[in-house]
């Protein structure tokens, strides 16, 4: 990994208004958990687990990773500044590794605490039945998988954000729910499978269509494949000019 590119990417994230947006996104589950605690609840374990699955894993996790992953390199490609890191004797795998590491670090810094805090609020401060632990591990693995896929998208297409949104809300949100065979191509299902493996909630509406081990293996394969493809795409990156 190239530490200069890594540091530059962290500064890019820190200097952008989108970091405020991500902070707002991370606050949403915490705020919802506080509102949830104001009411009466029959089974707070099941409801908290469902809440983490439906809000954090389904929406907040992919959105934060989408914003960071597609902008880590995509915004530089779009505005032309990518040439300053690409016209250098730096192996492309080192550039992708630095972009990936920076995206994962920042996404995890927003999503993982949001998961833990909102889970603990829902459970009144006590992580029982492995719920908080399970979802923290699941979202962390989700951060790796989503970030790798969205970085690949940003190198492969100028419409990465649009395609990423379609993947999250149409593919994972609709198609995977309708056709169970597509679960092998859903990072959300990998995360739910991993959370399901760790937690011991008796009735689980969030229960995944995939086993936890399967989810872990598939997430690992997705990360590796996406990063290898991203390096290949960057090796063949072409700069379009105006003349």
């Amino acid at each position, binding site marked *: 990994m190239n530490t*200069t590119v890594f540091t530059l990417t962290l500064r890019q994230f820190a200097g952008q208004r989108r970091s405020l947006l991500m902070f707002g996104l991370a606050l949403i589950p915490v705020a919802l958990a506080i509102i949830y605690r104001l009411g009466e609840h029959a089974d707070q374990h099941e409801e908290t687990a469902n809440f983490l699955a439906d809000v954090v894993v389904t929406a907040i996790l992919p959105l934060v990773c989408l914003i960071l992953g597609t902008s880590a390199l995509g915004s530089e490609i779009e505005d032309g500044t990518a*040439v300053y890191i690409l016209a250098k*004797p730096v192996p492309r795998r080192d550039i992708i590794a630095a972009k990936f590491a920076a995206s994962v670090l920042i996404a995890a810094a927003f999503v993982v605490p949001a998961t833990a805090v909102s889970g603990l609020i829902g459970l009144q401060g006590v992580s029982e039945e492995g719920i908080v632990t399970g979802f923290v591990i699941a979202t962390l693995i989700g951060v790796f998988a989503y970030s790798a896929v969205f970085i690949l998208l940003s190198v492969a297409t100028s419409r990465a954000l649009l395609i990423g949104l379609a993947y999250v809300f149409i593919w994972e949100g609709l198609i995977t729910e309708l056709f169970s065979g597509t679960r092998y191509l859903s990072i959300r299902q990998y995360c739910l499978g991993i959370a399901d493996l760790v937690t011991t909630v008796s009735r689980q509406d969030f229960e995944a269509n995939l086993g936890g081990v399967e989810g872990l293996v598939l997430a690992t394969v997705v990360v590796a494949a996406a990063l290898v493809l991203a390096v290949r795409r960057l090796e063949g990156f*072409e*700069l379009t*000019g105006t*003349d």
Partner: protein
Amino acid sequence: MKTASQAQPAGSPSPAVRIEAVNVSRWYGNVVAVNDVSFSLGPGITGLLGPNGAGKTTILHMMAGFLRPSKGEVRIAARPAWQNHAMYRAVGLVPEREAIYPFLTGYQFVLLNAKLYGLSDPAGATRRAIRAVDMEAAQDRRLGGYSKGMKQRLKVAAAIVHDPQILLLDEPFNGTDPAQRLQMMDHLRRMADEGRTIVFSSHILDEVERLAQSVLVIVAGRLVASGDFHAIRRLMTDRPHTFTVHSSDNRGLAVALVADESVIGVELDDEHLTVRTSQFADFTHAAPRIAKAERITLQELLPTDESLERVFSYLVKR
């Protein structure tokens, strides 16, 4: 294609500073951006000259390894430029696009580049490069607040921070004021004198005339002329030109001018005189002299077809 002389300078320069294009074409779908271009460049300054949209940036990007030729090959230091990332140790690139990281200061930006080149003393190299473009006073300001000309100079500093043997610049003088331009030109001349190969693109004839020793003229994706700039310039100026003339006695001046050997035709209408000449320089000297001899006041002598596009289209027809 017009070849005024060899594009490559005399002698046999080290392959480390040679840029070669061999039957290079590049197309986007059905659009041909560059069509069967070949050249060989050595140390010195070469201007890549052509009107907007001619294909200059496409050629420069292929030299810089950022575009794969659809046909043929571009070689830098005897190796293909495409996917040759190691070549950037010896190559500096100044892109045309203005965007640079707005949150970095000028110093941080050049230092970033020095580190990415893997230099052993990035801070020292950064100071030298910033001094070379005379930007020390503004080096601690954020790039977001720089003028276009200041950004151009910082981009040049970033491209020369590793002391490259080959420097590629895409429209480097855009947005610079005359003093900045002169200063930057002086620096490029010094680099060329040290045996480096410098290629810059421009659509402004005057810039190329002042800086380039040799030239590649690109029109509609084709290389229409290459070689010594002054010989190409003569080809451009020794073509038929048309002047519009206003004087105190257009009829009398027409009679006097038509006798001069530089004039190949005159047309007279109610308001002005149109003169066609085959010798641009001779005519511009002769016209005032003839008018004075005939005691006619010359009010205006205006070339009517001096656009670069017309000059280039003439070269294409030749």
